[in-house]
């Protein structure tokens, strides 16, 4: 809802520009889709082609050979993504707000404190010891959610968004006797919906794509998220197809295995649902919520 329209020709020009950009960006992506439905034979003979020589859904069939496991994987992933995103969004905004306030005396030290964790980390071993031996979080859903709750990058981006909120609004609310907690919950949060939506997108992507945490902390089949399942399937296929240690009889079965199509199909299966999440957050990309509307 721009306030004034540019003249039409400029508008057309910008639209044309983005259509070209998007076309260029989509091109390689189309290749991913094309390869995922190309039969192994034609891949072997003709290489990657935008228009498959012969179509086959074998790759998808292979991944869904045991649909119950895949569905469970989706279930776990959705669960941790939803829970994780909600908590993480709130926590991130909560941490970012005070350090975006210029009148906050400890603004700079805390910003540095947060920021420092982006540069330095102690590696996996101490983290693993802490999670498993002190908190006993092995094989729990919490182990999948907690490590990703508060990324310094997200906090600092959020701080960047909140920096723009003018001090006058906050001052006037304080005059009215509002506590900081109230200001945060009732003014800052509603004022920054586009920022929160962006944050929510990033956080949910992080949860959705994460498989390494699960690899570390999940031993049983109960809480294996989708991405780790896919990684495992892939590792099996690559092994059977290429390793000299794999037995002849197994190789028989896998020699003509559509490794590459399976890779591409996995990317689609893993990334696809994001196209549903995206519009959900985009709804909140709205402009023009003003303080006036809040007070009213």
């Amino acid at each position: 809802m721009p306030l004034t329209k540019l003249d039409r020709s400029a508008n057309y020009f910008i639209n044309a520009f983005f259509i070209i950009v998007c076309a260029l960006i989509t091109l390689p992506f189309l290749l991913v889709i094309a390869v995922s439905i190309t039969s192994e034979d034609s891949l072997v003979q003709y290489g990657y082609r935008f228009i498959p020589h012969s179509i086959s859904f074998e790759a998808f069939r292979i991944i869904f050979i045991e649909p119950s496991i895949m569905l469970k994987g989706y279930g776990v992933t959705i669960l941790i993504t939803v829970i994780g995103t909600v908590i993480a969004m709130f926590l991130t905004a909560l941490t970012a707000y005070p350090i975006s306030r210029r009148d906050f005396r400890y603004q700079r030290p805390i910003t540095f404190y947060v920021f420092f964790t982006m540069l330095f980390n102690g590696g996996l071993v101490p983290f693993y010891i802490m999670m498993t031996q002190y908190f006993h979080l092995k094989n729990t859903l919490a182990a999948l959610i907690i490590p990703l709750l508060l990324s310094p990058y997200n906090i600092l981006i959020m701080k960047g968004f909140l920096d723009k909120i003018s001090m006058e609004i906050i001052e006037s609310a304080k005059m009215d006797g509002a506590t900081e907690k109230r200001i945060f919950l009732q003014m800052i949060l509603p004022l920054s919906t586009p920022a929160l939506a962006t944050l929510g997108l990033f956080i949910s992507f992080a949860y959705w794509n994460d498989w390494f945490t699960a690899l570390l902390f999940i031993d049983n089949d109960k809480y294996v998220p989708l991405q780790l399942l896919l990684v495992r399937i892939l590792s099996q296929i690559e092994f059977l197809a290429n390793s000299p240690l794999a037995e002849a009889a197994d190789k028989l079965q896998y020699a003509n295995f559509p490794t590459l199509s399976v890779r591409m199909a996995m990317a689609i299966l893993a990334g696809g649902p994001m196209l549903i999440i995206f519009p959900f957050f985009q709804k909140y990309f709205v402009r023009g919520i003003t303080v006036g509307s809040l007070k009213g």
Partner: protein
Amino acid sequence: MKLKVSGAIYKLCLVLLCFGIIAACSSNNNSGTNNANKADNTADTTSNTTNAAADTTNNAATDTTTEPAKEELPEVKLTFYYPSNPPGPDQQAVNDEVNKYLKEKINATVDLKPLSFDEYDPKMNTIMASGEEFDIAWASRSWLLSYQANIDKGAFLELTDDMINKYAKEARANVPDKFWPDMKANDGKVYGFPVYQVAAKTKSLVIQKRFADKYNLDISSIHTYKDIEPFLKQIHDNEPGVVPFGLGQNSWGFFTDPSWVGTDGLAVSYKKDDPNYTILTAEQQINEKKDYYNTLHKWYEAGYINEDAPILKNFGDLKKKGNVAVGIEFTTKPGGELDEMNNNGGKEVVYAPISDTYFTGISSAMQIISKTSKNPERALMFMNLLSTDKYLYNLICYGIEGKHYTKKDENYIEPIKDSGYAPNVDWVFGDQFNAYLKAPQTADVWQKTIDLNNNAMVAASYGFSINQDPIKSELANTAAVNNEYGPALETGAVDPAEIMPKYIEKLKAAGQDKIDQEIQKQWDEWLKKQGLK
């Protein structure tokens, strides 16, 4: 100014706070590690001893009988990590069946923990680094969970001769004595028990039979890579669309020289006729290969080698098309042609060996006991069973009879498709020569493999491995240089006259001379100890 001062103070406070926490952590660390593990030990009678090594000696001292009677053994629970394909939904059922049998045999249960190949190293490294308790894991000399590196890090428990004689005597008897030194680490001690299987290698050219027949190629006349050149020319001239000689990023390095020992992967290389076993330095080796590099470059320029060889990630992708006339194969194991046929798009192939058959070691697959294990002696007993007990081995490999496989006759089985248990990793569990046979394996495949092992040439350098500590940074830097120039030269894509001097110069700058001197020094010491010098 005021703000600056307070900022600095806050930073200081934070730093101090961190150190305080670190100190608190460190004092808790040891007790924490031990306590945390107790929970999952059901009937652990030895839990008072805090350290696994002390544990072993204790038990070795108290158990005086060689064959401990079943009743005397307290029940224990073992953990066994190994790399595997996703085994299927019946993993638990098979695990239960294994436990039923184990309970009877050695009064133990085992928690089988298969991990996929990609996650095996990162996960095991974390588990071991954090001091988490487990008993057995699968390891190899240079692949997953590499042997020497993890010994250096203090992860594996030493298996003394006493222990092996006492708890794994039968399994040890299956491994020929002349192979055993391969299990020795740099310090001369043994830290793992081999999973006995094929242990010999021959480099071969893999030639498609249809072309060999068409051009009357006499396979027996081929002794080195050079002998194949006329054939490559014939293919190139007469068979359009066929790759005469196929190479890729993961398939190169078929140089052989009959006068060398150890052209491939061994710790040192020396000339066969050199009584002093003087090592060939990296520079010497590269220069010796000059002719080979030139030949390759000539082939590449002539179009005999696929143009994309140095950028082709997976050579298998090319081979699958079935139009690679000649490829290379590093192991050449009995029955391997069948395997190759499938990889070559169903086209029949023949092997043309171009190197000696040499022993590659039994340490390419082994089982180790963790230093954090509380029951190492029972773990070893379990490993012994895995390598000697045909029932147990086949149970863990193929699952439950009738449910996961059907028995055809005494030796042959047929896996039931999609039955819910198929880890497909026989080489992880134990002595492979105990395995049931599956079509299309021939009945004599195991005997043939054993013969191959026994007849393989055992190099003098065998059992020697380099202590990398003094030359660590040089090794790292030369590894990077080798990675930069090796594949390019080995696929013929670059002109050796131009690249070889650069390659050698860079290796030297990376400290190759120091490496060669250090290896020569260690090698001389070792030879003296062996009485060879």
